């Protein structure tokens, strides 16, 4: 593992465009930002403002059309290495034909962890999220909140340096949403990981230290604290 003083992600003039010609859509336009180690960042903005795309770029799941993105903490793109970055997706991202514990085990197995060890870590992670009773259930048998908590447990099990959460509470009621964000913060603290949450919910954003605002693909990282919270309230 590299030095903890290194930033996790550095973006310079990063743009991501989908499509070509007249039908081209600029999802992210010339974004410049740095995700520091242990950072707690909320990326706020209206639906379709480019938050998810930005997070996919951070996680190495997508490549920029122009600009430069780097991961100084690892010195290489994090894709294919689940212990670098863990992602909690917007919707149901569990494998529909694997049960809960198998879902949590999966990224560990991709890392080469033995089946036995992976099972142990998965159950430990489920216990941490207080959902060990769901271990044998299939995703279709879970509620939205339970499914999202399993997604978080899956991320926690891989012990990543950076947790990316893309609208993790978008489909949840307020109480469950609050619980999920608390769980995410708790996980980030326990793993000493950075946390970037894309959300349009000001109440969720309020739990985080930094508020970055996305508006029609343009990222504004200058606002912080109350100013950002207000902006996120406006965005929602």
């Amino acid at each position: 593992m590299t030095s903890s003083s290194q930033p996790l992600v550095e973006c310079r003039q990063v743009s991501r465009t989908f499509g070509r010609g007249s039908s081209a859509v600029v999802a992210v336009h010339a974004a410049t930002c740095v995700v520091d180690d242990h950072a707690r960042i909320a990326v706020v903005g209206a639906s379709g403002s480019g938050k998810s795309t930005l997070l996919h770029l951070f996680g190495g799941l997508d490549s920029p059309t122009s600009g430069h993105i780097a991961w100084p903490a690892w010195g290489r793109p994090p894709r294919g290495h689940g212990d670098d970055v863990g992602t909690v997706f917007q919707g149901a991202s569990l494998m529909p034909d694997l049960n809960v514990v198998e879902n949590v085990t999966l990224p560990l197995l991709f890392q080469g962890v033995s089946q036995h060890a992976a099972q142990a870590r998965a159950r430990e992670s489920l216990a941490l999220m207080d959902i060990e009773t769901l271990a044998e259930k299939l995703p279709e048998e879970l509620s939205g909140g339970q499914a999202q908590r399993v997604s978080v447990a899956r991320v926690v099990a891989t012990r990543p340096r950076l947790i990316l959460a893309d609208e993790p509470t978008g489909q949840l009621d307020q109480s469950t949403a609050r619980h999920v964000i608390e769980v995410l913060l708790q996980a980030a603290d326990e793993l000493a990981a950075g946390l970037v949450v894309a959300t349009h919910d000001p109440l969720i954003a309020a739990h985080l230290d930094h508020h970055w605002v996305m508006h029609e693909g343009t990222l504004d990282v200058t606002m912080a604290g109350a100013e950002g919270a207000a902006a996120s309230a406006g965005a929602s």
Partner: protein
Amino acid sequence: MMSIWLHGLVRRRGGRLLATAAGVAIAVALMASLGAFFASSKATMTNRAAQGVAVDWQVAVKTAPKVAPVLRAVKAAPGTIAALPVTFADTQGMHATAGGTTQSTGPGEVLGIPAGYWNTFPKASRLLSGSRNGVLLAQQTAANLHVKPGDTIVIGRSGSRPFHAAVAGVIDLPQSDSLFQRVGAPSQSQPVAPPDNVALLPASVFAKAYAPGRIAPGVLTTQIHVKRSHALPPDPSAAFTADMAAALHLQAVTSGAGVVGDNLGATLDAARSDALYAQILFLFLGAPGALLAAALTAAVSSAGATRRRTEQALLRTRGATRAQLLRLSVIEAVLVGAIGSIVGLLAATGLGALIFGSPSLGATPGAAIAYAGTSVLVGILISVLVIVFPAFRDLRDGSRITTTGDIGRAASPRWLRYGLDFIFLGAALAVFWATSRNQFNLVLVPEGVPTISVNYWAFLGPALAWAGAALLAWRIADLLLNRGSGLVSGFLKPVAHELARTVASQMSRQRRTIARSAVLVGLALSFAISTATFNSTYRQQAEADAQLTNGADVTVTESPGTSVPPARAAALARVPGVKAVQPVQHRFAYVGTDLQDLYGISPRTITKATTLQDAYFQNATAAQSLQRLASGPNGVLVSAETVNSFQLHLGDTLRLRLQVTDSHSYRYVTFRYVGIVNEFPTAPKDSFLVTNASYVAQQTGSNAVGAFLVNTGGQNISSIGNQIQNLVGTSAKVTGLTATRGQVSSSLTSVDLTGLTKLELIFALIIVAAAGGLVTGLALNERRKSLAIATALGANSRQLRTFGLGEPTFVAILGVVTGALAGWGLSEMLVKVLTGVFDPPPAHLAVPWNYLSIVTVASLLAIALAAVFIARRAETNVHEQLREL
């Protein structure tokens, strides 16, 4: 709403729509091609059957005074093109003096041939030498009398002095059996063989030879030979009925004075049985293909079932009524059915042009329209069944907003618990056994009834076996993926390593989809295997039949009464291209009071010139039978019928009466029974004997050869045959395998079955590849999301492939194993059930290994390509997939 839905459907689900339409297209193309092929084949059968007849009707006139009125009635009968009277007279014998010796024959027939006869009935004779203008002799008579054109023969007349005539030509009478039939007599009282000695005199010469007053009364009989119009209904059955009705009508018109010997009807009668066999083949070979294509379409369509149900649920929440949703699915079905049908018909026309040389879908424009229309209806029916029916079922079953699809803790299908697969297989065996008691007699010809029918019950056995095998394969897949998950995990371990258990778990929950794909691949392969094996066995037996009838590639048959020594083989062997020559003696022997053909061979060398199949012998192989014959000088192989009649046991002594050459008297010769022979090259269908030529020569004092079997290695048969004919002249008859092929084949086999085989094999290949690639690909495509999640969770390319390849590997292995076993079983069953198509019955299946290898590789390749394509797509389009999460 309809247009928005359609637009969205085409834009967003275009791939799946096209895949479903492709399934419909395969079914439509198969139905249209095969249906049209058999329709035109029936017409071809009728035409060929009619064209092969030399004289359509032989109307026997009972008394001389009635000849003129009967002739008038025949000429006036609708459909008569020409009618000529032919007079028959018996002769006590003929003799001729040539080359200083005088040769005599036994009794024979003399015919009075009217002018223009040979032009009206060109197939009635084949000129061997000289010209047709004058007195003609049949080839065997010329050989017996040692005469050639220009020589004079003397014809003995009952009650009158012999008649002298100069020979103008020597001819062969290819249809002498029907020419010398006893018109109006039942088949059992027909002559065993046509007369050996035949002279054909021009009517003017005949009138001099047999003028009234010069001969005894009652010596002459008259037949009116009729050429009928061959503009018959295309269906052989209809043609037969029409011809028979015309013949009966004539008999009624002549008040019984003229009795019709209906050669055309007899040929059409055989053709209508063959037409029914064609119908059987169509059902056996076409129906499974069409069913498979329908099942394939259903599988393709159901691959998107979850998505469709979700969309339906969403539309319902937005206020769409059930009737509206049903209408949407009907529109989708009609769209898919129409596209599929059009593509299918175009493919059928293309294949028709490519394989049969004609793009037409039927013998007539009306038939083409009927077949095309039926095929389109079938296509639309399939698409309605696979699209509208599931949609209707979903709508009827409730108000689910979201659905769970095919995964999860779904119980195994109900039929598994009831053991439907075992019930089907048991019923198949029972039906098969019941049909076997009827000797697999598929085409029924009830005595005295002019119609024939097909025993469709016989189809039930293979159909149930096919369905049972499919369900059993499903059971095995279910068992392996559910309870045998550990086994699957162990199997995957070397490739999947730590992921093996997870992949096995995932497959277990997808077992319904996986089992369906594996069963489809297995069924498609079994269809390809059974079709190809059946066709291959059919070809093998058709060839064996031709060789059995002809004897060898080329056979030189000596005229009866001539004495040609075996040494002549050396001269024949010198003809360029000849690989081997084997002499075969042909004698007659009395077994008790029964006169049977006896063949003397050299058992150690006979197979150099001809092929002997194991099926020709009973309770022993061909090699064993020949070995037994060679082991002692007086061994004899006899027919099963003789063994039963005389209660023979191996090693028993048989005393047969054989003619001694010098004295022409019969003497008892002792043989030892060493085995049973059912068929032998050149031998008749009824009882006969095969023994050692050397022993026969020693006991009868003559080594005269009946025929020489010539092996040309299957090459240049016709030209070598011609060279041999030139060498032996008119003293012997030379026949080649190529000509015999056409003659022995029934009208069914004379139809271009090569094209049909090609057609079936192409479709089998397409169905196998589609079942493998399309079904697996679409099933995997529906799980692109899972693969995208795996990518997002850090799976590298190898792991992603492992994750995606478990299912196709299982489908491929189970599909190939199931297909091979079911295909083998069905081939055995098909060949047994369709035994009537084969003559002689095959001893073993002919397996076309090359084609089957291609089909298996195509299937595996299609599965692998689909899997790799989907995995690649999932890997490269992760972002797109993730945006949908």
